């Protein structure tokens, strides 16, 4: 359980000034930072206010409008006692969900802050706890053991910061709150930066199982990522060329390069398919650029764990983005697509067991925007989008101005380049997994390559024949159909 929390003095001072100058009666927002359950410590990097919702309403308000009475001393206090805080919990949770996508490497939404009077806070603890819970669910941590979040209360008269730790139990009561030791200090300026460029290449065979069990592209990828997360868990790591041992502190400064060492071929994805017929292979490959920020009190192994978590989170976020997008599309297009249902199914929802043609789904690329004290936050850009989207997100979600100079934004990942046009099933199925992304598609082993070509040639011939046969059948049925029609008329 987190007992001591340190807030970054520079950022929190700024936040406090912002709040006191804004003259708002109440404000709710997200607490960004790191929680370390092994050290029982929390580190607060920044506070981000939740923006107004789609209806233009602020996310939190006081139930009765006594705002004018704010300055009227004793009377104001009396009315405030009877009023309660109304929080748009779903909206705050949605904000947390979207912000958490932009955070990386151990930096997370670790709770909420609230700017209200003491009495209002006391009246609304249950509601606040529920908001914390909603935020925790929307921006969940990968580590299941961390079942707590922070609730920071900034009261304006008198000006005071209190930090409570909220246990995420099934039914939250005010007893779930415990006050922690809170102080301001150097947090952001003492962070160590770790970077990893992770390459992966998963080959997921699609078996012919019971046809009723439809497996969409999205489902298969979801499973594939979860399976890969387990594999990544076992990985060892080198930082700046030396193997990481447990519980060692990070002694040197500067940017640290992390290299992940995975067990040699421990690919369990094909396991369930042994001696089964396969309908095809789903190749999921590419790179994830990842950062992690380590507090000087944390051991180096924490940075490695954060990097591993970040890689999986990034893959999941991107899959969510791709799926969300197409969800939106399909609801919009309902009226239009009635004519040709099959071809308009968005790619992530294609049932792979029925699909007889190649298809590809490009994931958005990750870009990095400068944030506080030399750290970065990330965002994702779809092939159709530009950096403008990133700037919008920064303003809307993180309430920061994105740099006007585009060169400040790091873009280490190139746009995904589908390989569908180059290969065929036999090209990718001969290696059910590959170590080098370089041996695909231009394998350096000539013999194997030659063999593969032969195989693919054969399959291509077969495919041609199949399409011709299908076309003939179609033509025939049209002819027969029209004959019958004309006969009937």
């Amino acid at each position, binding site marked *: 359980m987190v007992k001591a929390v340190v807030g970054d003095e520079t950022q929190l001072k700024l936040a406090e000034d912002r709040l006191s100058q804004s003259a708002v009666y109440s404000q709710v927002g997200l607490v960004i930072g790191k929680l370390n359950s092994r050290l029982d410590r929390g580190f607060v990097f920044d506070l981000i206010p939740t923006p107004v919702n789609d209806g233009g309403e602020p996310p939190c308000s006081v139930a009765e409008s006594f705002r004018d009475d704010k300055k009227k001393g004793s009377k104001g206090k009396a009315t405030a006692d009877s009023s309660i805080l109304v929080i748009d919990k779903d909206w705050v949770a949605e904000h947390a969900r979207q912000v958490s996508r932009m955070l990386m490497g151990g930096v997370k939404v670790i709770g909420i802050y609230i700017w209200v009077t003491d009495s209002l806070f006391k009246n609304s603890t249950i509601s606040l706890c529920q908001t914390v819970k909603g935020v925790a669910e929307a921006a969940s941590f990968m580590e299941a053991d961390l079942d707590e979040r922070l609730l920071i209360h900034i009261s304006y008269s008198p000006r005071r910061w209190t930090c409570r730790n909220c246990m995420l139990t099934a039914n939250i009561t005010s007893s779930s709150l415990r006050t922690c030791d809170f102080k301001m200090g150097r947090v952001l300026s003492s962070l160590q930066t770790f970077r990893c*460029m992770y390459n992966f290449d998963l080959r997921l065979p699609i078996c012919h199982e019971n046809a009723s069990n439809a497996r969409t592209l999205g489902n298969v990828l979801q499973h594939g990522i979860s399976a890969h997360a387990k594999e990544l868990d076992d990985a060892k790591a080198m930082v700046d060329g030396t193997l990481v041992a447990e519980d060692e502190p990070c002694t040197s400064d500067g940017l640290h390069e992390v290299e992940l060492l995975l067990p040699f071929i421990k690919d369990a994805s094909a396991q369930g398919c042994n001696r089964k017929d396969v309908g095809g292979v789903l190749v999921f490959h590419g790179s994830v650029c990842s950062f992690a920020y380590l507090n000087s009190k944390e051991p180096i192994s924490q940075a490695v764990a954060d990097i591993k978590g970040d890689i999986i989170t990034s893959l999941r976020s991107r899959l969510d983005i791709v799926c969300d997008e197409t969800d939106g599309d399909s609801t919009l297009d309902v009226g239009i697509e009635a004519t040709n249902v099959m071809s308009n199914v968005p790619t992530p929802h294609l049932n*792979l067991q029925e699909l007889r043609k190649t*298809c590809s789904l490009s994931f958005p690329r990750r870009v990095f925007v400068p944030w506080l004290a030399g750290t970065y936050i990330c965002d994702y850009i779809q092939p159709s989008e530009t950096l403008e989207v990133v700037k919008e997100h920064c303003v809307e979600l993180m309430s920061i101005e994105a740099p006007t100079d585009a060169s400040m934004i790091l873009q280490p*990942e190139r746009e995904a380049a589908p390989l569908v046009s180059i290969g065929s099933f036999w090209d990718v199925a*001969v290696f059910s997994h590959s170590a080098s992304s370089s041996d695909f598609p231009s394998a350096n082993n000539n013999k194997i390559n030659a063999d593969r070509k032969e195989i693919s040639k054969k399959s291509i011939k*077969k495919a041609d024949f199949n399409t011709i046969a299908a076309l003939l059948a179609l033509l025939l049925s049209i002819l027969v159909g029209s004959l019958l029609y004309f006969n009937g008329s």
Partner: protein
Amino acid sequence: MDNPVKEKTSIRVLCRNIVLIKNEVGLQWLIGSPFFPAVTIVSTFRCLHTLPSKVLSPNYLQEAEDLRTLLLRGFCLIGALIAEKNPRLEENARDAIDASIRMRKLLYGDGGELGCQNLIGAVADSDSGKVCFYVSRSEDSTSIETFTSVFYDDQPEKYVWENGCLLRCELGFKLPFCFPVNHSTDPKEIFKCATESIIAKFKDSQVVYMVEILKRTQTPEKGSRPVIFRCSDLDFHRNLSKVELLSDKFGGSDAKSLTCSYFCSESKPVSSYNFVETADIIEVSLLLNRSGKPQTATAPTAEYFPALEEARVSVLEFKLDVLCYAAKDLPLKYAVSSLIIPGLIDQLTSMKKAVLPHLLVQHPQLCPYHFSPPGVLHPITVIYELRYGETEMKQVEVRRSLHIRLGLPLNRPLLRTVNALKFSTLENDRSSLIRKGSPLLKDVHIGLPSSGVSGGLVSLVQGSYEYYHYLQDGFDDSGWGCAYRSLQTIISWFRLQHYTSIDVPSHREIQHSLVEIGDKDPSFIGSREWIGAIELSFVLDKLLGVNCKVINVRSGAELPEKCRELALHFENQGTPIMIGGGVLAYTLLGVDYDEASGDCAFLILDPHYTGSDDLKKIINGGWCSWKKAVDSKGKTFFLNDKFYNLLLPQRPSMV
């Protein structure tokens, strides 16, 4: 590497004596090591596969296949020995050298990854057993020289293990591969490609080798940190014989030039037994570096490739386990590139060959084991097929021929899976758990004072047994269970010698099996009836298939006369003997017999002991001690007015 041949023509033979069977005609491969001076023979392997009707013409391909699996990397073929009646010395030596040249080409390739070496041709007279050694200085047999002196090492274990260590690499992986159902492309070809791609991956730029010391205990030792080698650090073209050995332990500050001794403990005494258990073992693991250069990064893509013809997946599971020997002064990176990686490739290749014929039916379950059989100076590796039981004829045949090849006795199971070397801490833990269940004393006679027979020849039980006695496991058998306890001790011997894997039976189970064979009525089960030597022989036959010899004497006074026969039993069979008869039952563990004077003593393990399993108490109480037929006070141990039956279990002739 120094080459003493140039200075003096002397050969060093490390194996105690070259295993020769009288009148045996045949060829043996001589094994050396690239880390030893060129003319040092470590062991010999008998050539088993020969051309039909020609004992001296090996079937090279088959032999190479076998030796490749058997021989650890770090040892190599350095010559051959021909044993013949009335040998023509030089001619036979040339034949032997020619044979070894051909064999080396098959094993190590044309260029010879081990480089040119002096090859030894040895000729033995199968009648007299006399061996002559010749050496060829070049890679042909045209000019050979004889050795003037042969040096047999007294402490060969010391020689091998003081300067060397073991490296081990365990690698399990699953290899899925797809093939068209209609076999339009041969699945075997696809499978071959798949294994070749794995072999290529051993040297792939993404592969990283992690080298660390094998942890033998659960508690983390404060030891040397693991060392990482990237494939780009490794040199795959360097000839092992050209690698410079570095005596400097740390080879400078660079981790890349560390030698094996970095992981080896300082000056550990080398005991002649269990050398592998004390030897330093370095563990090597293969990892894939998944981190790349930032320049090559592209965002993830998912692409679906449907199979346009019916395709099927087959997943093959491989378990590679390679053990290598290296001089402690060998730089670690060469140990990886010249020993571990070729070892992995060899093992995968031979497994691939074994799997190919059964590719689409039931896959064989191949598993490598390492053994260190007594008398063989170095460990060996054997790949067993686990689909069949160990006692299956096919497996027995495999073990038999291995015993012959290594010159091991054919009536001792030395190469069963239970005999295999255990490395991982988990395996050790498991065996200690079992031991916790039966905290029985083993081999209580070891360390006893001598019997007092002057000039006697001691013949003892061979191998370990557990001491069973009255009241053990809270079971009250005082007064009737001594023969049962003696039987339990005998069965424990068979268990510990790996002739059987059955548990030592309880009293009830012993009674049950006697009822089952019809020797006793069902009411016998649960009774407190005595059993004798004859019943013991029935049970041994029923449970273990062991035959027994019985010696009857009408009086205890006749027992000393049987001493010569008993001594012979301990020499040849080495099993514990049960003494039964008119009165008490004992277990006999050995005799001390002076043929000249007829003086003798019997090493008696007494099952009538009722105390706790405390070795001191047992020894001081004389529950395991030498008993003279007539002691110094004139008392006789065996009663003159009682008869005795001696049950001599015969060692099964099995491997």
